[in-house]
């Protein structure tokens, strides 16, 4: 069993109200480290056995088609060690 990770983030030019809300809440709590914050999604997909090439290609396709909306988002597929 392995875990494939898909990370989906809003494109940089798209407004990110959630990230903004976090960025402005941090200083109120006394945290001043952040220059900027963006919030995205993270999918942990458990697959049987070691992920194969075809499987990864399928995940890419699913990330493109379902997990992200290419109009506003980008995605990255990773295999968790």
């Amino acid at each position, binding site marked *: 069993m392995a875990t494939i990770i898909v990370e989906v983030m*809003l494109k940089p*030019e*798209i*407004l990110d*109200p*959630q990230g903004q*809300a976090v960025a402005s809440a941090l200083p109120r709590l006394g945290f001043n480290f952040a220059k900027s914050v963006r919030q995205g999604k993270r999918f942990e997909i458990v697959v049987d056995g070691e992920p194969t090439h075809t499987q990864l290609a399928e995940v890419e396709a699913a990330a493109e088609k*379902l*997990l992200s*909306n290419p*109009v*506003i988002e980008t995605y990255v597929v990773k295999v968790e060690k």
Partner: protein
Amino acid sequence: MRIGVVTFPGSLDDSSALRAIRLAGGEAVPLFHASDDLKEVQAVVLPGGFSYGDYLRCGAISRFAPIMESIIVAAEHGFPVLGICNGFQILTESHLLPGALIRNQDLHFICTDQPVTVENTNTPWTRGYTQGQRIVIPIKNGEGSYQASAETLAELEGEGRVVLRYADKNPNGSQNNIAGITNARGNVVGVMPHPEQAIESLTGPSEDGLIFFSSILQSLVAR
């Protein structure tokens, strides 16, 4: 005139949309997401709600329903489609309309009586309004902030494809105060405000929304 309303798992305003069609004098036909049968309707409404809980992205999963395959093909040939709220989100996810709807600026669900202006009266769904008419219709959504690339916005504005615009104040951070748009052909319209909840003064803030439904009936007669 047979107008269909699709029920997806999690659709909520389907019964109100059916009622609006009836009150406008049309024959309201319930359609189910799992079948690709459009039952010979002449136009279709994708109603509001939280289809599939809207857990992934609003409309992302419904877009793949069998009924949507039929609707997408028909829409590309000029079949009139109105997406309201979640229906608008499904239309953008289906790429029948450009852009996307993201979380409201203040991150809250907002339910309020919203003044909007009608900016395009050439669509089959808005022909009964007068250009620039100010109407009051409820909005009720958590992800109603319209976003699109600069080119898309320029195209929408340049071609007069903004159908509804928020008046007075922008409730959610939508670009250019956009509350509703249409496709290049003008048959597919998506709006965030809920015209089907403004059809009787007893239960809504106005009766302004009924004109969406009388408009489509007139358009079908005129065909």
